[in-house]
């Protein structure tokens, strides 16, 4: 039996995590892999670009009503061949997501779905900004084998990314859980330089960049992945390369995320540099973005 790899995508809401995950799923499917993408956002929007008009019924919400569900009934095959599953969320303010992902993952295994669909990859697109115990539990209990933390150069996204890395590091104890940082809108000055410096400072071995492409934006607005809408575009090609890179990430050690004081110092320094840039000064350190 082949090994199914589970990769989770984390990061602050609104920075393009679902768009990226959907495009990577599409790229992997195009390469001949059987891919299942799982989203847990209340809006059921993780797999929207893949499934288009096909309606998703949130599996966890149904489970809470029916107690027994056949997980396969909730999986939709998208036109590009990616399997899509939306879990839905909690009633706002009620309980903790904690084990929702475990429960679904156990069903996927025990009901034979993984085997039946011959899944090579399961991409979990996990919504939520605060790495509380419940949020980190799937990483702690080794449900996930790899994590991709998505960020951009904005302060809230960066702070969230640092907290998530800290959460994963803490939860992994002595195990090594490969983590990659994926910088979205990397061409926005000085994202590339800043995030490269950050990765270096925390000893994060894997960092990948995704520039802004108008084609990504347009395909998203059209409700499609860029691989479906503009398969020949350079944006689509970028996703193909990224997909290959991200599924192969291997690291030799866990990073050491910034503590609160260091984080404040970093943010202070960044603001100074942004101010300088807005005043027309571009530092040598940031030249990688030029």
């Amino acid at each position, binding site marked *: 039996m082949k090994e199914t790899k589970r990769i989770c995508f984390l990061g602050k809401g609104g920075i393009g995590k679902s768009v990226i995950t959907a495009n990577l799923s599409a790229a992997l499917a195009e390469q001949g892999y059987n891919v299942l993408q799982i989203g847990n956002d209340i809006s059921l929007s993780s797999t929207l670009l893949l499934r288009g008009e096909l309606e998703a019924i949130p599996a966890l919400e149904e489970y809470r*009503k029916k*107690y027994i569900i056949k997980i396969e009934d909730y999986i939709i095959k998208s036109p590009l061949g990616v399997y899509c599953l939306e879990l839905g969320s909690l009633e706002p303010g*009620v*309980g903790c997501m904690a084990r929702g992902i475990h429960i679904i993952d*156990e069903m996927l295994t025990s009901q034979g779905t993984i085997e039946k669909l011959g899944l090579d990859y399961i991409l979990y697109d996990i919504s939520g900004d605060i790495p509380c*115990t*419940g949020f980190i539990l799937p990483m702690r209990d080794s449900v996930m084998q790899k994590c991709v933390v998505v960020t951009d150069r904005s302060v809230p996204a960066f702070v969230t990314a640092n907290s998530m890395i800290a959460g994963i590091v803490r939860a992994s104890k002595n195990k090594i859980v490969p983590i990659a940082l994926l910088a979205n809108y990397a061409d926005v000055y000085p994202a590339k330089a800043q995030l490269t410096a950050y990765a270096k400072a925390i000893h994060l071995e894997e960092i990948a960049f995704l520039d802004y492409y108008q084609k990504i934006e347009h395909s998203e607005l059209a409700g499609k992945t860029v691989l479906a809408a503009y398969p020949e575009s350079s944006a689509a090609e970028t996703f193909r390369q990224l997909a290959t890179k991200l599924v192969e990430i291997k690291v030799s050690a866990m990073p050491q995320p910034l503590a609160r004081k260091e984080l404040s110092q970093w943010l202070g320094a960044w603001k100074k540099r942004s101010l300088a840039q807005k005043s027309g000064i571009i530092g040598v350190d940031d030249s990688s973005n030029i």
Partner: protein
Amino acid sequence: MLDVAINHAVVIDTENNVEKEVNIGIKAGKIAVLTTEDLVGARIIEAKNLIASPGFIDVHGHVDGYAYSGELSACQGITTTIGGNCGLSPVNIAGFFARQAQHGFVINQAELIGHSFSLRQAVGISDPYRQATPKEFTEMESLARRALEAGACGLSFGLDYSPGASFDEIKTLAKVCAEFDRVMPIHTRLFTQNDLYSLFEVLAVAKRTGVRLLISHFVYQYGTGIMEEALQIIDQAIDGGIDVKIDSGMYTDWTTFIGTATFDEQTIADNEIRFSDMIVASGPYTGERLNRNLYLEMRKNSPNESVICFMGNKAEIYTALKKNYAMPSTDIGTYKKGEGHPQIAGSFPKYFKEMVKERGDFSLVEAVRKATLLPAQTFGFENKGVIKIGSDADVTLFDFEQLADKAQFPDRGRPDAKPTGIVYVLVNGIPVIDQGCFTGAKAGQVIKLL
């Protein structure tokens, strides 16, 4: 001649939800006469101003044949206790019953077969975080079957103590329990304090197997600000046809062995519990507040001593117990004199005092029904939970005005201080509490469900 005559008490008729002024005649361990005429017997109990209730049934205890816990139960008015809860029980139930019958015990005992410590250990699983193998499933299944055939009244789980137990493991055993139509009490597992999926997983087991559920010490599980939501889930399950009930004690501060997974550092950190919120309940450090050093020392050298963890929202006790499917329980453990948690001595008197007398959450009759007939019906104890002709002569006579718990947390006083107001307790017609004093009579029987 009657063995015992009880005259002038107000009798609680749990089947018809009324109070009646009738006199009770007892013969050969059974209720033989109910009449308005004064009765004469070998022993006459003048019970004016006392309430006569069917003996209380404690659905969640860990008495398991331990004499002092039997005494503390009797002193609260409990005439039947259900042991083997939270997955911790004798594995050889037939042997347990035989020993109890041979040596005698103060109150009646029914016993569950326990999964999470006992069956797992019996098949060689020592790591609580490990999933059982299919071979171990089969072995546990066969041990559980043997226990149920020997008359165990159900199969208990303490999933917090075996976080590694998979859904399939629980389901496999639940099927056996359902086959015998016995009750499955579950101490649910919460991976975080707000983990309501802990309820859905056991409801899913019930839906799949048809097993009858009793969710144990509900307030200890969900009394941390999520009670309303947890009860809504239960209500919804009942509406959907699942047979589920809950039990709860009168405290929010739970206790268990310091060596269990519940007290793992990770669990403590996840739930933001502080050492200063914990008090040692047994052993040489009884009454001491925990600190890191004492924690480490006890984890290493005395893992079987108990520690109380102070947490929770007191109002949620009442919210839970007000449900018509909720039963009061003690969670009594086995402690030496002067040790333990006040639940071991105070629970039932506290329940009547606070919920009936002080708060008026329900009538005395309803409070008695929840403590007697409802548990008897839940477990299928046919002749218990009622005072009627032919039923077992388990009778608790109490002075409602005087009824009060006296037990305190071990840092403040005696956790085993006996309550006031329990005047007579008869087990199978024999007084084990007589004019407020414990007699030591071994009047109990083992209850085998066959």
